[in-house]
């Protein structure tokens, strides 16, 4: 388990919300680049190098497609590169498209990580507080899906070995699938009666149900809340002071390089790389601890 995963679910959730918020509501090139590289780096610590390379390959393709789409449909901007079907293709639209593509791919990378780190029990824990009934229903549904899948395979196989729906023509196969699905519904209703009994036997339905979880807050979680609040404060101050405004149309603006803004960029970079940094620090620490043994 990576270090970041072992934070309290609320910390992880808030961190993601902030990352996605910052990425999606600023169009400043440096912020977007930070978000993208941070997302890729985190994804790299979570998966194998080979997986990461194949991911990057795929998203590079997506990047090219997305960044070409904008100049084809948008013709704003003053620097015309060439005409296509009597429509101007401009440099500004190109650059804007590139950064939109970067934003989309950054969000995709972060979501991939989120998917891996925020396991279902964490999601349930977070939202169970708000709607306790819903969280139980979700927990039951999540338990049910793999059961349903497995049973479908078993029924299908046993029908096949009796020669039913085993012919090599498509209508027969489709019919077979529908039948199997139909019987699966019956099967699941039948079995859920027993589940209901088991719930009743353990006192489900009595008033004042509580919600239990195995997650607990540690000191590092509290520190994270502090750090995130501090970051948000600085981010909004900077945004308010106009440090994060970048102009794409009609002509490309200059990237602000004043001292204050460089500090802000560094801060955002630090924030975006935070999961990867602590992961690496943790690894170094373990190397060190192991060498001591």
């Amino acid at each position: 388990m990576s270090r970041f995963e072992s934070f309290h679910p609320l910390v992880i959730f808030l961190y993601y919300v902030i990352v996605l918020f910052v990425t999606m509501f600023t169009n400043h090139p440096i912020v977007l680049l930070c978000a993208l590289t941070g997302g890729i780096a985190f994804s790299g610590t979570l998966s194998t190098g080979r997986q990461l390379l194949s991911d990057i390959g795929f998203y590079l393709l997506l990047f090219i497609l997305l960044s070409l789409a904008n100049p084809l449909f948008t013709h704003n901007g003053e620097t015309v590169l060439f005409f296509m079907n009597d429509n101007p293709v401009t440099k500004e639209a190109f650059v804007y498209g590139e950064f939109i593509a970067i934003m989309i791919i950054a969000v995709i990378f972060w979501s991939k990580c989120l998917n891996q780190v925020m396991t279902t029990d964490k999601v349930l824990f977070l939202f169970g507080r708000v709607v306790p009934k819903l969280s139980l229903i979700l927990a039951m549904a999540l338990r049910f899906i793999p059961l349903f899948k497995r049973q479908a395979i078993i029924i299908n196989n046993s029908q096949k070995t009796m020669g039913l729906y085993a012919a090599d023509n498509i209508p027969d196969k489709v019919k077979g699938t529908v039948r199997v699905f139909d019987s699966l519904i019956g099967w699941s209703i039948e079995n859920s009666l027993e589940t209901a009994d088991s719930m009743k036997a353990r006192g489900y339905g009595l008033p004042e149900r509580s919600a239990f979880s195995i997650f607990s807050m540690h000191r590092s979680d509290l520190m994270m809340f502090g750090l995130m609040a501090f970051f948000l404060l600085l981010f909004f101050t900077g945004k308010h002071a106009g440090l994060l405004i970048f102009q794409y149309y009609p002509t490309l603006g200059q990237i602000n390089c004043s001292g204050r803004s460089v500090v802000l960029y560094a801060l955002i970079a630090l924030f975006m790389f935070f999961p990867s940094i602590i992961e690496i620090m943790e690894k170094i620490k373990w190397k060190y601890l192991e060498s001591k043994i």
Partner: protein
Amino acid sequence: MEILRVENLNFSYPLREEQALTDISFNVKEGEFIVVCGESGCGKTTLLKLIKRELAPCGEKSGTIYYKGIRQEDLDDRTSACKIGFVMQNPENQIVTEKVWHELAFGLENMGLQTETIRRRVGEMASFFGIQNWFRNKTDELSGGQKQILNLASVMVMQPEILILDEPTSQLDPIAASDFINTLYKLNQDMGLTILMTEHRLEEVFPIADRVLVLNKSKVLLFDEPRMVGEKLKNVENNGVSRGLPSAIRIYQGLQNNSACPLTVKEGRECLAKNYTNKIRTLKREKRCLPAAEPAIELKNVWFRYLRESPDIIEDLNLTVKKGEIVCLLGGNGSGKTTLLGVIAGSNRPYRGRVKIFGKNIRKFKGRELYVNGLTLLPQNPQTVFIKETVLDDYRELCKVLDCDQKAIDHRIERIAERLSIGDFLNIHPYDLSGGEQQKAAIGKILLLEPRIILLDEPTKGIDAGYKDQMCTLLKELKDDGITIVIVSHDVEFCAHIADRCGMFFDRTIISFGEPEEFFCNNNFYTTVANRISRTMFDNAITTEDVIELCRMNERDE
């Protein structure tokens, strides 16, 4: 002190003429381990469910149930939910949530306890049951045995005073079942927990039970210590229970002697040694005349794995099954027996080696050719065989496979229904049948295809002794019709009764193969209880009938 008292309990289900329970009265003392037995449909489950108020079925009820002197109706909701624990038969269906820890906490959440209390109680139980290693796992990744232990633990966290279990081991393999029963024994001995359970694997629970409640046709037949029950049942004809009793008791009942009734293998041995000589050590059997050695199934150097990266499940396996014989393959859980059946049935394709059915390579069969009038597989769970609303509709579905009209299939159905005596439940939804009836109906469906080879996967799982006997007779009849049968099972006793040849599947291949006498007499552990009881006295007794016969022969000899 008395913890449970049942007084003149009568119960009948709506729209049913006969009573499910008639005049049941008994009491249970604190800390007792009580086993309830009786043949299928004698009302065991109904009785247990009535004792747990939340699960009481609808119907007409009279009589009273007292828990610690309080009438069941007057119990407070929380007491009733917590203090009377209930574990059901099917390990899968009782689990409510996705994660092990959540499942353990479920009952306590319902009680509205605080996180700290829940954490402590759950932790305590998880360590008692050895769950800590899979505490954070998903529930669907567990094995059957682990699931049932989880169900037990998630009832035990509620700190019940009496635990009711309805055939909790019927869906488990023998080793997991043993573990489960040992855990119950430990709970009973170490915690003084009162236990009331039904069970068809009586071999293991009889010796540890304090008292046994025998039900017969909705009435209490006997309620006494196991030893006394063994002795008394000897004189009761048609009690429906004797068949399922431990082998030691069955041998005792088949013989005439005045010593106390033995319960375990050890006691059984002592009883035999004390009362009988062993001048005649071997039972002469007619050599089984195996039919003409034409092979029905041939596997040559078969290798199989599910995925390229996964390990081999079957490694270099050779097996020849001759036409018209019954072959049983025994083996532990997860050893790959079911996978092997899949290979024979053509649903798993080996990556090396050859499978021949009736001398023809299995890959050369096109479409449903192999399955019509050829080979069929009855999977472990007979429920998966049915996909229609009634058994009859399901049977009729097969006319598509057989390419015949409604009339012809009805004719066939009639014949099969008569043969299996299943005419009564043709119009019933398959899920409404009991385990044994479902199994029978599933066999019926398979027989409609007029197969020449039948593959059976754990046909005795969750079935009581009476149905097992019926199945034995049926399979032997089918064999006489010239059908080849391959059975994969854990059930050593069943295989000993029925097999022409037995094999043991271990470590990806078949390690020993031979006729039952030779197979079981050479095994020390993996053998029938009757053989374990008699192995010091006799040479080749494998069933209780063999032991009884040998004892009688020695008696005559004296």
